[in-house]
C-alpha cells in the first residue's frame, strides 16, 4: 500500500481526463439511427399490456387481458373481426398495423405504481414495446403515463376514473377512453333529483385516496347545485374491510342519502355493511333512505350480490347497451358476441375500454402512417369516431380525454343470472357531461418521441 502525494497539477490532469471520458460517450447517445423510441423495424410490432394480475383489482385485470388478446387477434385478421366491422374508421384491414403483425407482452402492475412502472420499463427497455396500455387504478395510470411521457412512448390508459389522469396530471403522450369522476357526477345528479327529489341530505363515505377525493368532489358539486345538502364526508382507509363503525353513525346524522365513493372490494364491503345495518329499509326526514354508488362495475355488482338491488350508479359501458338503447350504440353487440364466443361470458366495462383503446391506437398509427408517438398523438387529437359501442365519440385535443354518452345504471331487483345484474336507467348525452378542459389545471406539455 502506498500513499501518493497529490499535486495540483495531478488533480487538474485527472480532472481533464475524467471530463473527457464523461463527454465522449454522449456522442453515441445523442441519436442513433432510430427516429423515436423502439421504432419497429422487423415484420412485427410489440405492444405492452400492463394490467393488475394480482391484488385488489385482479378480476378487472384478467378481463382486460382477455380483451387485449381479442383485440390483437382481430387486428391480425383472426376471429370475426369484432368491432373492426362497426368502427367508423375503415383503415384497419386485418393485416396488423401498417402491415406489421401485432405481438404483445404482458406485465403485472400489482396495482402499485412502483411495480407498474417497473413492469412498463421492462417492456419498453427489454421487449421494445412501442405502446403501453392498461392499468386498473388511477394511481397506476398516472404513474405509468408519466413514465411513457419520459420514455417517448404512447400510453393508452385502461380503467382509470380519476379526474387527474387527463386533468392535473395529463401528459402529451397519454390518452384516456374511459370516463371520469366529473362525468359520473354530472350524469348522476339529474337522475338522482328526478328519483329522490331536490331536498336531500347526503352523507359521503370516501375511499381515502386520489380517486375517492375527485369522485366525492364531483358528486358533491353536482348534487349541491340542484339543491342537495352535504351533511358529512368521512374518509375511510383504502385497506379497510369492516365498515360497520363508519356506517353506524350515518342513520343518526340527519342524512337521508348515503353516497359510497368506493370501488372494487371497498364498495362491496361498505355496501354490504350498509344493507346489514338496515339502511335500505330505514326512513329519515320522512323519506326512504337511499344509497348511491357513483362508479359501478359488473364485477363489483357480482361481489355485492343482492345488496345492489335498486341502487343507482354510473358506468362507462354495459354489454346490454345496444339492445336497450338502440342502434346508436352499434359495436356493442359485435364486441359482446366475439368476446362471448371466445370466453363464454359477456365482457366487463374494463374489457370494453381497453379493447377500444387498442383499436384506436392501431387506427391512429394506420392513419398517421407511422408509429412515431408524435404522429400518432396528432392523429388521435380531435379524432371523432363512432361504432365502438359508445355512440359518437370525440378524443378532445386539449386534454386527451374521450367525450361520449355516460350510462346511469341501477342494480336489478331480480337478476336472471350472474352477468345480468345491472339495468340501464338512462343514457346521459355527451354534451351534458362535457366540461371546459382548463378546470382541472395541469399542462399537456409537448409530445416526446424519445430517442
Amino acid at each position: 500500500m502506498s500513499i501518493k502525494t497529490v499535486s495540483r497539477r495531478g488533480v487538474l490532469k485527472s480532472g481533464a481526463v475524467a471530463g473527457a471520458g464523461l463527454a465522449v460517450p454522449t456522442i453515441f447517445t445523442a441519436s442513433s439511427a432510430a427516429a423515436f423510441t423502439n421504432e419497429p423495424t422487423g415484420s412485427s410490432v410489440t405492444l405492452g399490456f400492463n394490467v393488475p394480475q394480482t391484488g385488489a383489482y385482479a378480476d378487472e385485470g384478467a378481463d382486460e387481458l382477455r380483451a387485449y388478446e381479442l383485440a390483437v387477434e382481430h387486428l391480425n385478421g383472426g376471429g370475426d373481426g369484432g368491432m373492426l366491422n362497426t368502427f367508423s374508421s375503415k383503415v384497419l384491414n386485418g393485416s396488423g398495423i401498417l402491415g406489421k403483425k401485432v405481438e404483445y407482452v404482458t406485465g403485472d402492475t400489482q396495482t402499485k405504481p412502483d411495480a407498474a412502472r417497473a413492469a412498463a420499463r421492462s417492456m419498453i427497455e427489454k421487449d421494445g414495446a412501442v405502446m403501453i396500455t392498461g392499468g386498473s387504478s388511477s394511481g397506476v395510470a398516472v404513474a405509468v403515463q408519466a413514465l411513457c411521457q419520459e420514455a417517448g412512448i404512447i400510453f393508452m390508459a385502461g380503467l382509470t376514473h380519476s379526474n387527474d389522469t387527463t386533468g392535473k396530471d395529463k401528459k402529451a403522450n397519454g390518452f384516456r377512453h374511459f370516463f371520469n369522476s366529473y362525468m359520473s357526477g354530472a350524469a348522476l345528479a339529474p337522475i338522482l333529483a328526478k328519483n329522490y327529489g331536490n331536498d336531500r341530505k347526503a352523507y359521503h363515505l370516501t375511499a381515502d385516496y386520489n380517486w375517492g377525493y375527485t369522485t366525492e368532489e364531483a358528486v358533491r358539486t353536482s348534487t349541491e347545485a340542484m339543491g342537495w345538502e352535504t351533511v358529512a364526508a368521512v374518509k375511510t382507509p383504502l385497506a379497510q374491510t369492516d365498515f360497520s363503525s363508519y356506517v353506524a353513525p350515518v342513520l343518526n346524522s340527519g342524512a337521508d342519502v348515503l353516497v359510497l365513493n368506493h370501488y372494487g372490494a371497498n364498495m362491496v364491503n361498505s355496501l354490504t355493511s350498509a344493507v346489514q345495518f338496515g339502511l335500505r329499509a330505514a326512513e329519515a326526514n320522512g323519506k326512504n333512505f337511499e344509497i348511491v354508488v357513483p362508479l359501478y362495475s359488473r364485477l363489483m355488482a357480482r361481489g355485492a350480490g343482492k345488496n345492489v338491488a335498486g341502487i343507482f350508479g354510473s358506468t362507462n359501458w354495459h354489454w346490454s347497451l345496444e339492445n336497450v338503447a338502440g342502434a346508436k350504440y352499434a359495436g356493442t353487440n359485435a364486441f359482446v358476441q366475439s368476446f362471448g364466443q371466445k370466453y363464454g361470458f359477456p365482457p366487463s366495462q374494463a374489457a370494453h375500454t381497453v379493447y377500444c383503446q387498442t383499436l384506436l391506437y392501431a387506427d391512429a398509427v394506420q392513419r398517421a402512417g407511422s408509429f412515431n408517438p408524435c404522429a400518432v398523438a396528432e392523429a388521435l387529437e380531435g379524432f371523432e369516431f363512432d361504432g365502438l359501442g359508445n355512440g359518437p365519440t370525440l378524443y378532445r385535443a386539449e386534454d386527451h380525454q374521450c367525450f361520449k354518452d355516460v350510462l346511469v345504471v341501477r342494480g336489478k331487483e331480480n337478476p336472471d343470472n350472474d352477468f345480468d345484474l345491472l339495468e340501464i336507467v338512462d343514457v346521459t348525452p355527451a354534451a351534458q357531461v362535457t366540461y371546459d378542459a382548463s378546470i382541472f389545471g395541469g399542462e399537456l406539455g409537448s409530445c416526446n418521441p424519445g430517442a
Partner: protein
Amino acid sequence: MFGLNKKDTSLLLIVAALVALAPIILNPFPEGSGMAQFNAGYPDLMQRFVIFGIFAIGFNILFGLTGYLSFGHAAFLGAGSYAGMWMMKLLSINVIPAIVFSVIIAGLISLAIGWISLRRSGIYFSILTLAFAQMAFALAASVLTPITGGETGLQTNLNDPRILPGFLGGGSSVDGNIPKPSLFGIEMTSSFEVPVAGWLWTFNWGYYICGIVMLIAFYIAIRIFRSPFGLMLKAVKSNQQRLNYTGLNTRPYMLACFVISGMYAGLAGGLMAAMDPQVGAERMQWTASGEVVLMTILGGVGTLIGPVLGAGLIKYFENIFSKINDNLLHQWFAFLPDGLEDLMVTIIHPFIGKGWHLTLGLMFMAIVIFLPGGLVEGGQRLRKMFGRKSEERAPKTTPAE
C-alpha cells in the same frame, strides 16, 4: 489496497468487475432466441439490482452484525425517495443534491425511530420498527398528501420551480417537456447499445452511476465489518447482557449502527427516485420491509456479498418470472404432442406470471432448509466440493449463541 486485507480487496475487485460487466454477463442469450426471455441485462432491472443491493447491504449492517431484526427499513427507503424527489422538484434535476439530501433525511428519521425502538431488543424491537414503518406508510398515503402526493405518489412536474441555474440542472422544462434526472447534463436514462453478433449490450449511464455508488457503499460496509466498531456490534450480537455487566453502554453503538443502516436505505431510496422520478407510498409498506429481510437471509446473513446476491435473485424473479405467460409456455412446449403440451403448461402455470411469489417462496424454503447460510454457503460448499481448500475460516455464518 484501500486499507483492506488481501482477501477483502479481491472480494471488492470481483464485485467491481461484476458491476462493470453486468450488461454483458446478464445478457447470456442472443436477442430473438427463445431464451432471450431470461436476459436481465436491461437498464431498469440492472439499476434495481444494485439499488436493492445497497438497501440490503445497509440492512445487513444492522441485522447481520447485531442480530437486531428491523421490520421497518422500508420507511427509510421511502423517506429517502420523497426527499430526493423534492430536491429534484425544488432545487435541480441534477441527481447529486437529491441523493445527498435523501441520505440526510433518512439519517434523521432513523435517529428518531432508533432512539425509541432501541430501548427494546429481540421481537419487541422488531414490532416497534414495524409499527413505525406502518405509521410512516399511513401518513404518506393519506395525512401527508400535500407532501407525498398520497396514493398517486410524487412526480416531477412541468411547473416545478427548480431554482438552480440551468447548467446545474435547474429550470422547469426543456422543449415543453419535464427534464429528465441527470448528472451535469448526462441523462440517467441515456445509454448506448452495442450489438455484437446477435447479442445486444446496453450500457446505461444511470446504471453505472448506481453501480459506482454501490461499490462505495460496499467498500464502507467492508470497513465497518472489519473495524473495532464492527467488532463491538458483533459482541452485542453474541451476548449483550455480558457487555452490559462489564459496564459498557451498548446503546450509542447500536444507535450509530441503526442510523448508518437507515442512511444506506435512504441512499437506495434517493437513487431509486433519481433513476425513475416517481415515488409512491407503497414503497414504505411492510411488504417492502419484509422483502429486504428475505433478500438478506436468501443471500446469507452477516456475509458481505450475500445481501447483494439475495437482492439480485429476488428482483430477478419479480421482473423476469412475473412476465412469463401461458402464451410463451405454449411456444416453449410446442415440440410436444398436443395433450402433453397442455399438460406441461397446466403443471407450470401456477409457478409463473402472477405465481412468481409461489416459485420464490418454494426456493426460499429450500434455501433456508438446506443452506441455512444462504447463497454464500452454497458457494462455499461448491468450492469445497471442487477440492480447493477454504482453510482459514469455518463458515462465518454460525450463530454465536
